[in-house]
């Protein structure tokens, strides 16, 4: 089943151009991996990138540049050790398309509810996390701060605006206030990013007031 809720064209363009914040780009890419329509759109923007690269006025390379490149191709390729890819043991449970992602310690918030911070290793103040919420759970009514992006990876949830299933992409900001309900037939796993200066404690507190103190 293909997703019904998609990122804006601007988001797809800046993801393809490589100018989108890295955490937001992860969430957009999670959607692209599940949405052939947006993948084609991203492909168009990559074609545009190639065409614009061709149209660039050539810059003068340094004198030694070519010789250094020749020396580099003559040297044996640097190979990453096979183990170097999995940055943490916790990444074993990661959903499809996100294998190898560096994640922090999975935190139990309440029955059936886990939050896992995702490490983006960039000079970026974004917060990126995986959220797993048990079947049938209702989140307390909350608003959002900054620009937040969410991609449903597994299961589904609903709010006043609609139902969001696997691959669906949701953009929220301060104006959105909602109380999402997870479908009864299974847990919902989402990847989310926010550019607000939050820390994980804020996120947990905001979503799970009822569990505070557990």
């Amino acid at each position: 089943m293909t997703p019904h809720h998609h990122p804006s064209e601007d988001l797809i363009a800046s993801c393809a151009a490589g100018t989108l914040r890295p955490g937001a780009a992860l969430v957009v890419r999670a959607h692209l991996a599940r949405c052939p329509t947006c993948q084609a759109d991203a492909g168009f923007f990559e074609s545009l990138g190639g065409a614009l690269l061709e149209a660039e006025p050539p810059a003068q390379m340094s004198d030694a540049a070519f010789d250094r490149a020749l020396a580099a191709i003559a040297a044996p390729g640097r190979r990453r050790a096979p183990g170097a890819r999995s940055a943490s043991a916790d990444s074993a449970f990661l959903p499809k398309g996100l294998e190898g992602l560096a994640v922090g310690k999975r935190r139990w918030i309440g029955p059936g509810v886990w939050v896992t911070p995702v490490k983006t290793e960039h000079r970026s103040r974004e917060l990126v996390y995986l959220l797993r919420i048990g079947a049938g759970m209702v989140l307390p009514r909350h608003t959002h701060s900054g620009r937040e992006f969410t991609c449903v990876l597994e299961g589904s949830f609903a709010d006043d605006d609609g139902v969001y299933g696997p691959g669906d992409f949701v953009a929220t900001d301060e104006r959105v206030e909602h109380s999402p309900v997870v479908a009864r037939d299974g847990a919902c796993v989402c990847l989310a990013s926010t550019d607000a200066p939050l820390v994980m404690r804020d996120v947990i507190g905001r979503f799970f007031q009822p569990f505070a103190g557990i």
Partner: protein
Amino acid sequence: MKGMHGAIAQNFDAGRPSGRSVNASSNAPQRSAADALVVAIARHQDRDAFAALFQHFAPRVKSYLIRLGVSPAQADELAQEALVVVWRKAALFDPSQASAATWIFRIARNLRIDALRRDRRAAAYEPDPSDAPEPPPTPDVHRAQRQRDERVRAAVASLGADQLRVVQLSFFQDCPHAEIAETLGLPLGTVKSRIRNALQKLRAALEESQ
């Protein structure tokens, strides 16, 4: 070393499909001379082909990176690195899926994202799906992707210098329209209509390819 592809290398004009003119209505995927050079590297480790690719693309990659705000010295290094990646990953290049220019754009884009990360901490890892082989679509999808590259390239080539400039600013640099207007010393309305017109042309190229 004079490789068997020396002739291709000498007559190299990456923008032009080799041996035939661009025919937008053709169903056959177009191959550019640059594609042939990457294939020559993959098959024969052809250093003449590498030299020709380097000469064409390294200065353009450098120019693109400087546009993104990378220092000229680092842009020079990253441009070298991009072409070294082209050499090492040449076997993964599939000219039925993408043009060499689009493939090299992805490599350069990802290297810059990597470089930003390296600045912060060494040896971090993030999945980088974009220059790895995609899950295999059907041959029809491949052909469509390859044709899209040609059509978008033709559409970009048909843009006027003014339109090209606003597309570069808005796509490569992600500039807000107001900032573009200030950079170019133009009224905001003019910038907006230029971007709109340029995107219409490019969109038309996309629609044709679907």
